[in-house]
């Protein structure tokens, strides 16, 4: 892992970036006041907290260690994964009953507009 040549990511969110994130997250802007609050808090988090993850003093120690998905090493402690086989839920209607709209055993959603295939 050679990170010395990799530029540090920009740690600032402006209105344009917020709109991009909202689009990705499928969360619409609601009011100028709420968007101002979001920009303020997200930037406070970046400059006061997230930036510390980029502390250059950590570089050597981070280079020398592998990332972990869990704190505890689970590999030797978990049961073997079950067979990859269909295990149908005993009452599918009970699950479909939770959906806002269903028809003939399917979830009903609005049309999805494909920009490309």
């Amino acid at each position, binding site marked *: 892992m050679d*990170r010395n040549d*990799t530029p*540090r*990511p920009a740690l600032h*969110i402006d209105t344009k*970036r917020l709109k991009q*994130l*909202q689009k*990705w*997250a*499928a*969360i*619409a802007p*609601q009011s100028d006041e*709420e968007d101002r*609050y*979001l920009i303020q*808090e*997200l930037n*406070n*988090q970046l400059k*006061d*907290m*997230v*930036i*510390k*993850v*980029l*502390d250059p003093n*950590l570089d050597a*120690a*981070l280079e020398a*260690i*592998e*990332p*972990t*998905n*869990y*704190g*505890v090493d*689970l590999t030797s*402690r*978990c*049961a073997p*994964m*079950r067979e990859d086989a269909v295990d149908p839920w005993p*009452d599918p209607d*009970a*699950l479909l*009953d*939770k*959906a*806002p*709209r269903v028809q003939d055993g399917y*979830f009903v*959603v*609005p*049309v*999805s*507009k494909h920009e490309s295939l």
Partner: protein
Amino acid sequence: MPDALWRYSATELREMIQSRQVSAVEVCEDLINRIESVEGRSGGLVQQEDEIDTRHIHAFIHPLSLESARKKADSIDEMISRGDDPGILAGIPFAVKDIFCVKDTRTTAASSILENYVSPYHSTVVERILAAGGILLGKTNLDEFVYGSSTESSAFKPVTRNPVDPSRVPGGSSGGSAAAVAAGEAVLSLGSDTAGSIRQPAAFCGVVGLKPTYGRVSRWGLIAMAASLDCVGPLTRNVKDCGLVLQVIAGQDSKDWTSVTEPVPSYPDLLSDAAVHHTLKGLKIGWPTEYFEDPELINPDESADILRAIERAADLYKSLGAEIVPVSLPHTSYAIPAYFVISRVELASDLHRFDGVKYGHRTNQPVDDLYEMYEATRTEGFGVQPKQRVLMGMHVSSAGYADQLYDRALRLRALIRLDFHRAFEKVDLIMAATTPTTAFPLGGIFGDTVQMQNADRLTVPANHAGVPAISLPCGLDSSGLPIGLQLIGPDFREDRLLQVAYAFEKENN
């Protein structure tokens, strides 16, 4: 019949019920009476707070399960009268944070996007407590999708108040669970802990809270916040009760691959006075200098009462034969920054499932296509705290950011884990404060997302490392607010944590 059964611990009530000194129905009715006298209005989606609400606890989310509780209590008494084994928690009224699925019960995660969601199945931990004879009273309030440290971000109001001082927060995100136990509205409760959400409210409300080792307890049926950090654990009146609940909920579950096959000791049997006395003799307890001296973690003026209480606890342990050994956990101040990145990336992914298709709220607005339906549904359904966390998750996991921020945060987690590993080569467990402050006033820091997250700075390292940690009451500050002593142990040594916690509780009674 003894008065005020709500004051008794699960361990005491268990013996009283099984010896037929009291009935499960009498215990249940006493708890229901207690709820009626202190709860006030339980949380609802559109409730505005009135002046009278400021004098009540509001630990629960409406509706409570009181009729089914009465029926279950009746059936427990029948089992006992027949001579059947009713289970080790028979007749014990409990509450669960509304982040756990309970079959045929509304499960909201304190979010309006799940306002009307009724779970078709039980979470494993709830199923196990019910099978052991526990009596479910209701679901407790929390921060929306557990995103907070004060329970103020719940969509369900009135806000939960701290039973010790109702002008203060109960902590969070398991604030309702801690408040219910502290107020005598439940004998015990379940919470979840991703950055300290069991231990911090336990400390603020003056009860015991345990975050087990990652993998010790099944997460099946827990609505995920950050799946690599989430842990399920008990909040109880005392340490023995904590061991009793852990005994019931711990152990491998085929529905959760991350639940481990490690054997489960009989925790209650390990909490005899003789066993605890034996454990304390020659025990090496680590004193992590960063937790007491690093200015990024602790302000000696702000935390003076807390630091004195922890020092008194160390003196008590020394008097019982333990040795206090300084240790270093040098990356502790990076734990919150790493948590900011890892948790946001995971939760942004986890919250994609709430899209108005399979369950939960769907917008009633006219929409032209699927994306518009997603967007309108999520915008209406999520509160501002989930929104800001999802947006941060999208930001730090996007191209150009993920390689540096997310990858470095995962490596930082490994470094924090290594810190603990090295410390546990020298000591048997570690002691520290649970929180840098006692319970803060309602509204004191709500909305300041950095300060709120920072409230977890002494608890989140154990989540990164996956190790078990317990918080237990260790005195009061000058305002009469509870202080939490935190004990942190090596993987799967909940037995040792419980023993050492029990020794303190017994001597400090």
